[in-house]
C-alpha cells in the first residue's frame, strides 16, 4: 500500500499495518518519537493497536533531548 510518510509518498508491504509494525518496517528504531496518523496523535500505548491504511498520512517526529 501507498502512504504519506513525513510528507513523502512511500510504498509499504501489506494492506494494513499497526503503527508498531510500520515503525519496525521503516526502521524507526529511535525510542522517543511522536506519531500522528491523519493528524491525530497516536499514544505510545496504542502503537500495537492503531492501524495504518492505504492513503493515510503518517508523521513520525523524533524528540531530541535538550531544553
Amino acid at each position: 500500500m501507498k502512504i504519506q510518510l513525513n510528507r513523502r509518498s512511500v510504498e509499504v508491504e501489506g494492506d494494513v499495518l499497526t503503527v508498531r509494525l510500520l515503525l519496525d518496517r521503516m526502521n524507526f528504531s529511535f525510542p522517543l518519537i511522536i506519531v500522528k496518523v491523519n493528524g491525530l496523535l497516536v499514544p505510545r500505548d496504542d502503537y500495537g493497536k492503531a492501524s495504518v491504511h492505504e492513503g493515510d498520512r503518517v508523521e513520525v517526529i523524533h524528540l531530541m533531548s535538550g531544553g
Partner: protein
Amino acid sequence: MEERIVRRLLGEKSVAIAGAGGLGSNCAALLARAGIGRLVIADFDVVSLSNLNRQFFFRDQVGMKKVEALKTNIFRIDPGVVVEAWETKLDPEKIASLFQDCDVVVEALDRADMKAMLIETAVKLWPGRPLVAASGLAGFGGNNRLRTRILGDLTLCGDGESEVSLEDPPLGPRVAAVAALQANRVLEVLLKVPATGRRRR
C-alpha cells in the same frame, strides 16, 4: 497589527510553560515582553552555575528555585504580568490541574521522555489547544536548519535532529533561538495570523 492592539489581545491570554531551563526561561521572558497577561510556569530545578551560559538567570540567583528566580526576573521586565510559579516535577495529573485554563502550552522540558509525556498528556486532555514544543537545539551554528513544523495543533521548533550530549552541549545562542521560535509561534497562534512568515503586499 499595531502594537497596542497586540498587547491588548495578548494581555487577555494565559500561556503554560512546562520547564524553566534554557527554553522555558528565555521563552517566558519574551512572552512577558510581548505582553502576555498570565504565565503559568512549572519546573523542579534550582539555578546552577552551568545554567548561566544559556538560561535567563543571573549569578546571584545560583541556588534559587528556577521558578522563583524566573518570576523575579519577569517582574523586573514587567510587574504587571501575572506569574504562577510552581516548583514541581510535572506528571499527567499535575499537567491537568496546573495548565487547565491556559490558552497555549509551551513544551520547554529537557528530557525527550518528558517531552513525549507532556505532548501525549496535553493532546489527550485538550484536543484542539495549541501546543508548541521543541526538539533539536544542541551545539552551535546551523541557523538555517532551525525550523518550525506545524502539524495541526502541535508545533515543533528546532532542527529535529541534534541531541544534547557532551560533544554537542546546549549553548546560549541556539537554545535562545529555539525559545524565540517558540515564543513567536505562540504569538502567531494567539493572534490568529494565518501562516509563518507570509507577507501581504
